[in-house]
């Protein structure tokens, strides 16, 4: 599926749920966030910290053959942040550079999560998306 298709599907999935169920879905993304491969888990200095997030999260972007790979690290005691990372990973990981850069920066606000987690917390996900796009731009130029 393309970035746009996955984004639309997630938007519809969240919108169809009750507020409580939205949190459960976010928790699933949090629990399923892939582990870091050893080349990053053994070298945390290579990861970039997203300061705007309420809890510490580190991310790393690789670009190869015009496709984007994403890696995240956030502690289990920060499940919301992990959940945000899991959603962005689902939508963007493995996708072409052009599609990643084209994802609307407002995408986090379209997920019907504001009521469940509060608009302030959602800012962390917007910041994460902005960092990803910036790294993709740098690494694909």
């Amino acid at each position: 599926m393309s970035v746009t298709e996955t984004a639309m599907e997630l938007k519809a999935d969240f919108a169809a749920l009750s507020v409580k169920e939205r949190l459960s879905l976010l928790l699933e993304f949090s629990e399923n966030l892939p582990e870091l491969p050893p080349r990053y888990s053994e070298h945390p200095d290579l990861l970039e910290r997203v300061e705007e997030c309420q809890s510490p999260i580190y991310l790393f972007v690789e670009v190869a053959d015009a496709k984007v790979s994403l890696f995240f690290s956030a502690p289990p005691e920060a499940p919301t942040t992990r959940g945000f990372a899991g959603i962005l990973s689902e939508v963007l990981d493995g996708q072409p550079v052009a599609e990643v850069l084209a994802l609307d920066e407002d995408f986090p606000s379209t997920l019907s999560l504001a009521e469940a987690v509060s608009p302030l917390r959602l800012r962390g996900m917007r910041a994460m998306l902005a960092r990803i796009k910036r790294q993709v731009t740098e690494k694909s130029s």
Partner: protein
Amino acid sequence: MPVALDSSPKFQGYAHPEVLVSAKWLNEHLGDADIVVVESDEDVLLYETGHIPGAVKIDWHTDLNDPITRDYVDAAGFKSLMERSGISRDTTVVIYGDKSNWWAAYALWVFKLFGHSDVRLLDGAREAWTGAGYEFTKDEPSISPSEYPLVPRDDKTIRAFRDDVLAHFGNPLLDIRSLQEYTGERTHMPDYPDEGALRSGHIPSAVSVPWARAVNEDQTFKSREDLAAIYEGEKGLKPEQSVIAYCRIGERSSHSWFVLKYLLGFDNVRNYDGSWTEWGSLVGVPIVKGAEPGLAPAAR
């Protein structure tokens, strides 16, 4: 029936030993009919990853704050929150949370705005439970229906507004933010999102005690002696003085408010929840930059 107090020797040293319980005590009293355990975290999903059996969740953003006005829930909102949490006016409420009970103390402060009498914190925060060898569960609590009266929020006794701060000059102010925020090097907490303030620095004459100095490494509160050495010894605050504490949005300062009021016995402490996100953007109020408190302007 009032629920028994935790008689742990450590707590007996505090001015109000009745406001703290240990994990061991809580485990022994989990089944008591008159207790409701509340988890209140910074992370809105942490409760869902596992919580103390039977605990209900109260979130600072989505439950305690009004969604429109920058304010707390009103009498009807609090009544509704209490009833959906199974809390009656005479329930013993034990609150715990992440980050050394930072948000738990904030929730406790809001409970006190509505005069709920028996509210306690789990000493050692969320970690104390697993640290003592007890398990978390993902099972949803079964909540017993409760009735809670409509109680007006008391915004005078433990809460200060900006005009109260202006009128307070000449009395002690306590800034509990990080040193970088206090000196004006930055407007928000290191590693946290910027909630916005147009100026940086501190309120004139405020002394700096970053909130986390009140806790040990294991997230339990420091002993009475250690706390007194910081706030009374090092900073010269006196329990009979009127003190206003502030931070960025009033959450970290709730933790210090709790320490001063209940552990050290300061009778007249208020939390200025407008805090730096208000003061640092307010037109025409005085600000001091740098590590020194600076002189208090005339009260107005």
